[in-house]
């Protein structure tokens, strides 16, 4: 791979990393508003507030960057990047089409799972380094939640990989067939719920429950660093939505997939992202004990059952 190619690929991933989360964020603004009988942003940019998030970005960049006196300065300042960069890495490994991925590695599913779990570390660092009781409580809740939901998430991904017989995401799409929609359905549901919890999105936003914890681990953050946490959240939605599309919805499979495969992947990912937004609007926040119970008593058994079912399916059909 020549140096030029490396640069082009990096720039492409960076562009996607900056554009797609904003797209999801704007979709959330609008979809959520209409689901609540509102219009959402209408002014920024002229046409239906399309530039609202750009305006927000400008606002964040103008704000003062404050580090609390009691904070662990270094950790406090690098935490947003620890939360953000893994998703950049994850996005680089996501295939959009046959051979269209910034980084092509044999076991991309493992790389993605590893990268997304590092992001959680940023939240924990932010909470600990803030020297704020709310931030600490939020970080600990977040840690407990991420540890619990990591397992069902990994198991459901393992199920899809087992069914495909490969750890490569491109290989999973190659092996995908429509009846996976039934066969892998429990695993897909587990993945979606666990991904929501990993992203700390409502109804799993106990770590940043604003009624009790101000803003959880992000309480002390302002300006660009706060914006980076928000960007990480939306980049996470993009990553998990695309991962869901690739693992369970057949990625670029669809009519005209030779030319428009990448569009199919993005479209399926967008549908999943809208679903994630919809869940946020429709459902109230779950309590801490309900969260843990759902992970260990519901999702984990279902994921294990799915894994067994996949195993049986693979043995019978081969």
């Amino acid at each position, binding site marked *: 791979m020549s140096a030029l190619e490396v640069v082009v690929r990096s720039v492409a991933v960076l562009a996607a990393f900056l554009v797609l989360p904003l797209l999801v964020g704007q979709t959330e603004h609008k*979809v959520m*508003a*209409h*689901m*609540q*009988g*509102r*219009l959402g942003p*209408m002014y920024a940019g002229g046409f239906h507030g399309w530039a609202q998030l750009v305006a927000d970005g400008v606002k964040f960049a103008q704000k003062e960057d404050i580090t609390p006196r009691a904070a662990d300065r270094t950790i406090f300042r690098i935490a947003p990047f620890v939360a953000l960069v893994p998703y950049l890495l994850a996005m680089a490994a996501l295939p959009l089409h046959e051979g269209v991925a910034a980084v092509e590695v044999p076991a991309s599913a493992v790389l993605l799972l590893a990268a997304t779990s590092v992001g959680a570390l940023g939240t924990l660092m932010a909470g600990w380094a803030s020297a704020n009781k709310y931030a600490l409580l939020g970080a600990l809740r977040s840690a407990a939640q991420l540890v619990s939901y990591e397992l069902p998430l990994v198991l459901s991904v393992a199920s899809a990989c087992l069914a495909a017989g490969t750890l490569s995401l491109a290989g999973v799409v190659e092996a995908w067939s429509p009846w996976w929609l039934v066969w892998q*359905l*429990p695993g*897909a*549901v*587990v993945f*979606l*719920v666990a991904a929501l919890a990993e992203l700390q999105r409502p109804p799993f936003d106990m770590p940043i429950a604003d009624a009790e914890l101000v803003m959880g681990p992000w309480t002390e953050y302002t300006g660009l660093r706060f914006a980076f946490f928000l960007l990480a959240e939306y980049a996470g939605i993009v990553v998990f939505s695309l991962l869901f599309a690739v693992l369970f919805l057949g990625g670029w499979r669809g009519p005209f997939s030779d030319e428009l495969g990448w569009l199919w992947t993005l479209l399926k990912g967008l549908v999943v992202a809208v*679903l994630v937004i*919809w*869940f946020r*609007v*429709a*459902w109230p926040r779950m309590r801490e004990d*309900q969260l843990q*119970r*759902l992970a260990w*008593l*519901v*999702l984990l*058994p*279902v994921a294990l059952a799915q894994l067994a079912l996949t195993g049986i399916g693979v043995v019978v059909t081969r």
Partner: protein
Amino acid sequence: MNAPTDHGHEHGHDHGHDHRGGKPGAKGMLPGILKGLATTAKTATRRAHTREYPDVAPELPPRSRGVIALLEENCTSCMLCARECPDWCIYIDSHKETIPATTEGGRDRQRNVLDDFSIDFSLCMYCGICIEVCPFDALFWSPQFEYAETDIRDLLHDKERLGGWMDTVPPPPALDERSAEPAEVAAVNKPARAPRGAGTTGTSGASGA
């Protein structure tokens, strides 16, 4: 996403911990989750309730208490409004002018001429007592409300400004179907009284005209 598998479990489990116990919980969780999705989806397909105010003027009911308009011609400077105002925000200045007698040997008449009629809207509490109390229909409610100022002292509006709001006063709402006729109409339609001493047996009718 087809969620029943997962939420079915969630529901069964939650039911076990439901302290209210028994049947209500059994019906509660799963339909509630789907209902939430259905309600939000339904709302998304309907028109938003948002009023785009600065772009689209609001439709206010005719009796809105926006601002008090003055019909200067009707004002007799009787000061009733200024005296009834609970927070003394109406300022009236007037002088008397003499109108010469129209007939030979007649008496000159005097009338009040309004010099200044100002309402301080930084004090006004929009009670409407001035409007109620005005015997000559010189004050009216107007739904107009866009007269905010950046300085509180600019909220003292004089009679020209108050008169300018007369254009925005809506016509009074129609009377109810079987209400009594308005006092003015009743007064006009009432048969005139017979002149005194016209005779005890006379009908009270036509002679007065």
